[in-house]
């Protein structure tokens, strides 16, 4: 990035911050703050271990320093500006989740930016389903990360004092790590016998059970021959087992509805085994583990600008998530009003701000938000005046 580009971006980031309404996180003065300035050279300087005592009020600081990236800690500390973690003296931490298109198994390098973000939003909705329905969390903040994904900050009292091991359990839960039929299926005493039961009221048990009922409904919609053939497609189910399972569906469907796995014999249990794998793969939320387990993590400040895209890190209200379009809604107002010239060094198609652009490697006059995006991405330099 050339000096004039850097100076331009820094100046415009400053204009943004003078107008921005950041509403910093609760207990901002107990948190560690960090930022990356617009310095030269490849090795970005990461300025860490600041408290608000060092920086002053955050809005004023940002308008003055105009950093490239801004972060605050998930953790709260007695002395947030101390330079080691033990001297900081940890008090509590929000629970933070990071969904990043780069880590999603469902994306491929050929996907467009828009497609990746859409895949990411699907994962976000699955994550929120876990957090709200299973975990019952109520204090959630969802933010578009400004680049390739979403962050969720959970601030319920119940999570504040959890240590790393406990947070890893939460990660494993939403990622379905270690989920097995064996671990899921419990036993219950029914009259005088113990029966194997799939839990139906909550957790992954409920999800697997719902899938089981769906599968049963699919079988019922087929004729007998087709249903038997479908069952035998599953590993470990031959003709005999398929018949037992089919018979149970016909005669004792109510047992299956209660999660009783004894009724359908080995065949039904084999079926559940394979559904567990299927449900785990389809319904887990592939969050980035280290972000969630690290109680000292720094995360991007909602409301700030992402220096690698020039897009805003946008808080997205719960009800707006479905409709949220990051490529339109995260474009800062400040950069919408006029055009600038840039020298494109790495062209191609770009979709942004509700428009789509095809750019050659030469000078272009473009809407400022697009110019800022390209320059932040390292795909253009500021045009010479």
């Amino acid at each position, binding site marked *: 990035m050339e000096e004039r580009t850097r100076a331009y971006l820094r100046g415009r980031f400053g204009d943004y911050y003078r107008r921005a309404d950041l509403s910093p996180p609760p207990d901002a003065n107990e948190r560690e703050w960090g930022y990356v300035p617009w310095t030269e050279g490849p090795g970005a300087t990461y300025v860490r271990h600041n408290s608000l005592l060092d920086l002053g009020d955050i809005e004023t600081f940002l308008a003055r320093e105009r950093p490239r990236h801004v972060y605050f800690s998930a953790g709260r500390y007695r002395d947030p500006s101390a330079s080691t973690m033990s001297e900081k003296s940890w008090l509590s931490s929000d629970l933070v989740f990071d969904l990043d298109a780069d880590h999603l198994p469902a994306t491929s390098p050929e996907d467009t930016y828009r497609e990746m973000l859409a895949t990411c939003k699907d994962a976000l909705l699955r994550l929120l389903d876990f957090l709200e*329905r*299973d*975990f*019952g*969390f109520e204090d959630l903040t969802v933010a578009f990360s400004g680049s390739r994904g979403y962050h969720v900050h959970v601030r*319920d*009292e*119940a*999570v504040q*004092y*959890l*240590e*790393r*091991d*406990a947070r*890893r*359990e*939460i990660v*494993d*839960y939403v990622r*379905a*790590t*270690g*989920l*097995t039929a*064996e*671990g*899921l299926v419990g036993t219950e005493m029914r009259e005088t016998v113990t029966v194997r039961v799939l*839990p139906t*009221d*909550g*957790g*992954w*048990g*409920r999800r697997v059970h719902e899938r089981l009922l769906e599968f049963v409904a699919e079988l019922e919609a087929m004729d007998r021959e087709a249903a038997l053939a479908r069952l035998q497609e599953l590993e470990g189910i031959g003709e005999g087992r398929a018949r037992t399972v089919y018979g149970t569906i016909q005669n004792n469907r109510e047992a299956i509805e209660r999660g009783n796995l004894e009724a359908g014999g080995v065949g039904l249990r084999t079926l559940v085994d394979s559904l567990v794998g299927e449900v785990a793969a389809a319904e887990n939320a592939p969050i980035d*583990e*280290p972000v969630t*387990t690290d109680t000292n993590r720094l995360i991007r400040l909602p409301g700030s600008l992402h220096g690698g895209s020039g897009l805003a890190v946008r808080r997205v209200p719960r009800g707006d998530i479905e409709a949220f379009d990051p490529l339109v809604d995260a474009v800062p107002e400040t950069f919408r009003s006029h055009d600038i010239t840039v020298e494109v060094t790495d062209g191609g198609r770009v979709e942004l701000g509700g428009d789509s652009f095809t750019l050659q490697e030469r000078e272009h006059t473009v809407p400022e938000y697009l110019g800022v995006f390209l320059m932040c991405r390292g795909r253009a330099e500021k045009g010479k005046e």
Partner: protein
Amino acid sequence: MQPLHARYPFLSAAREAVQTAGVDLAAVVADEPAVVERALGRVEGALQEGTVGEPHRRTRVELLSYPVARVLVSVVDEHVLVHKYARAEAATAHERFSEELAADTDLRSTRAATLRLADLLAEFDLDGAVRETPEGYRVGVGAYLQHAADQWGEEWRLVNRELQDGEVPLTEAELLVLLRQAVRHRVEEGLPLDVPDSVATHLEGHTDRVEELLAELELTRDIDTVVPDLFPPCMQHLLDRIQKGEHLEHHSRFAIASFLTSIGMSTDDIVEMFQVNPGFGEEVTRYQVNHIRGATSPTEYSPPSCATMQSYGDCVNMDDLCEEISHPMGYYEAKLDDTEEEELVDWRERQESKS
């Protein structure tokens, strides 16, 4: 000082009773050999039986032996000891309260000096997080994780639980295990304590005895147990990559192979463990493992320390235990210590029963 306090010396009421009585722990250590003996008994019991042994018949001695035992553990200051000791205190408490709570209800209400479940829950700030239901109990997920996260066993993993609306259903027996964990965490809290030298000197003979016992344990514990679930995160990660068929750099291959060798695995075992991935040919594996074994002298077999692992970028997914150890072997030993003997399923036995 009531008998209840002596039975459950970790309760805040017990601590208060000791304070109210104006006990000076330094003086006790210096002048009350019965207390110090019983304190040693607690620690010996922890190392040998996993419980804190038979109570002393005098309430005062029994109660005071608890803080003194904590001092003793602190002076020796070994990670395994703290761990084993806390587990033992918790195991004994669990045994006692399980029995008391199961006793006849009528009897219970007339005996003021017994412990009620509600008291225990309140003691650990769990009263707000636990509620009774017709099927058992429901525990808030935060409280559950706080105490269950380091409890061994698949059934305690949250992923296997019927989590709904922020609550985990538990049976009564499970709730008592959760309370055992709460006791364990309470006992561990603050250990090791800072012990003034003046107190430590009085305990010399006793700390020697504890150190002896510890050394015996270490000696009998020339690790020959293979439980991959308990491997340190770095080794699990390397193993994972091998099993996926990834190509590892030399230092990484050396780290995993020397680790597996040090826990008693033969070349054949290692070849077998690596071979989950069908694309990873036996010959290549055997060659690599033999290479590592043959190319270095026996003393160099010992796996790299955490510092070395870190410098090579092989230290990944550190967890809380990692912060307390300096060597992947130390991690594995601590994990083994932490796990009930019956729960340990040696990977090699599992392999045999399979074939």
